[in-house]
C-alpha cells in the first residue's frame, strides 16, 4: 500500500559570505520575516536519518534558478549526500530549467509563477519529462473570505481561484499539486483543511499540502480530513522539539499508513 508522505521543506536564501555566495536555510512566517536556521545540507542529512520521505527545496530569493550556480551546486550536494527524493523549485522560468535541475540531481521540479504567466510551460515539461516530474506549486491567500492565487513570493494576487487553476494545471499535465496557504505559513495554527478537501476532490493527482503545521495532529488532519498524499512543513521541523520520526508515530497511531522503517 502506498504510504502517506512527510516532507520537510527547505527554504533557501543566498547569503554573501566573504567573496562567495552560500545557501542558508531559513524559515518564514506568512512568507516574510525570514530567520536563518542553519546549513541546508547538514539539515537534509538529519532529515534523512529521521526518515523524511522526500525533501522540497525552494529558492525563495526569486533569482532564475537555471543560471544560479549556488542553487545548482546545492542540489548536486544534496543528491550526493542523501539518498532521498528531491523536489526542487523557486525561480524556474523555462522548460530548459527542468533539464538543468534534473541533471543536477533533482527528481521533480516545482514551478509556480512561470506556469501562471505561461501555462503552456506545464504541457511542454510534461511532454518531455512525464507528468511525474512536474509539480505545480500554488500559493494562495484568503482575501475577503475568498482564496486567491498569489505569485511573486505571495505578494501579488492573480485574481484566480486555486481550485480552478489547479484543475487547469492538471489538465495540462501537472503530476502533483503543492498547495500552500501563505497566510498560515509559519504560524503553526494548522492546515487549511477546507480548501485542501475541495482540491483533493477536484483533481485526481496527488496533492502535497503545506502552510500551518504546528502540531503532529495537524499532519493527520491533512491526510485524513484534507485527503492529501503528502504534508510538507518547514518551520515545524526546524524549531520544535519535533522530528519526522516522532511525528510519524503520532500519525500512524491516528490510522494513517506511513513508512516505518528504511
Amino acid at each position, binding site marked *: *500500500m*502506498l*504510504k*502517506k*508522505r512527510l516532507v520537510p521543506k527547505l527554504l533557501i536564501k543566498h547569503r554573501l559570505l566573504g567573496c562567495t555566495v552560500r545557501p542558508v536555510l531559513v524559515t518564514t512566517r506568512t512568507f516574510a520575516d525570514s530567520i536563518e536556521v542553519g546549513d541546508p545540507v547538514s539539515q537534509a542529512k538529519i532529515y*534523512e536519518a529521521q*526518515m523524511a*520521505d*522526500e525533501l522540497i527545496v525552494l529558492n525563495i530569493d526569486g533569482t532564475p534558478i537555471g543560471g544560479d550556480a549556488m542553487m545548482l551546486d546545492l542540489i*548536486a550536494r544534496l*543528491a*550526493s549526500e542523501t*539518498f*532521498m*527524493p528531491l523536489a526542487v523549485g523557486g525561480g524556474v522560468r523555462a522548460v530548459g530549467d527542468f533539464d538543468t535541475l*534534473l*541533471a*543536477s*540531481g*533533482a*527528481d*521533480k521540479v516545482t514551478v509556480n509563477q512561470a506556469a501562471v504567466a505561461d501555462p503552456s510551460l506545464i504541457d511542454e515539461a510534461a*511532454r*518531455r*519529462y*512525464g*507528468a*511525474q*516530474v512536474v509539480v505545480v506549486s500554488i500559493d494562495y491567500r484568503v482575501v475577503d473570505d475568498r482564496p486567491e492565487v498569489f505569485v511573486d513570493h505571495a505578494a501579488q494576487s492573480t485574481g484566480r481561484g486555486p481550485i480552478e487553476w489547479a484543475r487547469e494545471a492538471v489538465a495540462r499535465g501537472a*503530476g*502533483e499539486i503543492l498547495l500552500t496557504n501563505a497566510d498560515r505559513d509559519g504560524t503553526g495554527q494548522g492546515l487549511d483543511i477546507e480548501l485542501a478537501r475541495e482540491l*483533493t*476532490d477536484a*483533481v*485526481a*493527482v*496527488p496533492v502535497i499540502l503545506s502552510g500551518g503545521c504546528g502540531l503532529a495532529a495537524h499532519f493527520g488532519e491533512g491526510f485524513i480530513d484534507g*485527503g492529501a*498524499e*503528502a504534508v510538507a512543513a518547514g518551520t515545524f521541523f526546524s524549531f520544535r522539539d519535533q522530528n519526522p520520526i516522532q511525528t510519524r508515530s503520532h500519525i500512524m497511531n491516528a490510522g494513517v499508513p506511513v*513508512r516505518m*522503517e*528504511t
Partner: protein
Amino acid sequence: MSAARAHVGLIDYEAGNVRSIENALDHLGAQVSRVRDAAELEGKTHLLLPGVGAFGHCADKLRATGLVPHLERWAIADERPLLGICVGMQLLADRGEELGDHAGLGFVGGTVRKLASAPPTVRVPHVGWNDVEFAASFGDFAAGERADFYFDHSFAYHDPVHGEVLGTAEHGEKFAAIVRRGKLIAAQFHPEKSQRAGLRFLKAFLGIAPC
C-alpha cells in the same frame, strides 16, 4: 562478488538522473563510468540502464546511441548483469503505451500501460513509498519479504514473457515492480532514492557474479 570490485557502466543516453545513481553506487564502493558507445563497455562488470521521461522518447534516444545490439548481446547472449531502473526497466518490455504505441527492446517482453486512477484512494502518478513483495530471494532480501521503495511513475509493467516477476507492488492494481531474466534485473522504483532499502537492492545487484 563484493560491491567494491564491481565496475559499473552507467548507460548515458541523456534520459535520466544519472548523478543520483552514480552517487549511490559510489557510496557502495563500486567504480562507476558512464557509457556512451560500445567501446566504453570494455572492462565493465555490470551495466545500469536508467531512464526518466516518456517511453517513446527514451526508446528513440537509446536507439540513437547504437548501443541496443550490444546491450542485447551483453544481457541475453552473454548473460551478464544489467539493471534497468524506472523507464530503463520499461524499455525491456515489447511495447509501451505512453503517448502512443511504441516498441520496446523486448529483452524481457510484456507491456507497459497506464495505471488506472481511482481517486480519492488511488491517484496517478503513483508517487511515494510503496511496499514491494519479493517472490524469490534476491541478495539479502528473502522470498516473501516486503520492503518500501520510492516510486514516481504513471505507467507500469505487466506480464513479462521471458523472465519472472521478482517483486510485486500494488497501486489500484498489482504490477511488476521488479522483473528478472537471469542476471538481467529491472525495477520500476528508484533504488538510488530509496534510502537503506534502495542501497540493499543495489548491493544485491552488484553482488551478482559478472560472468
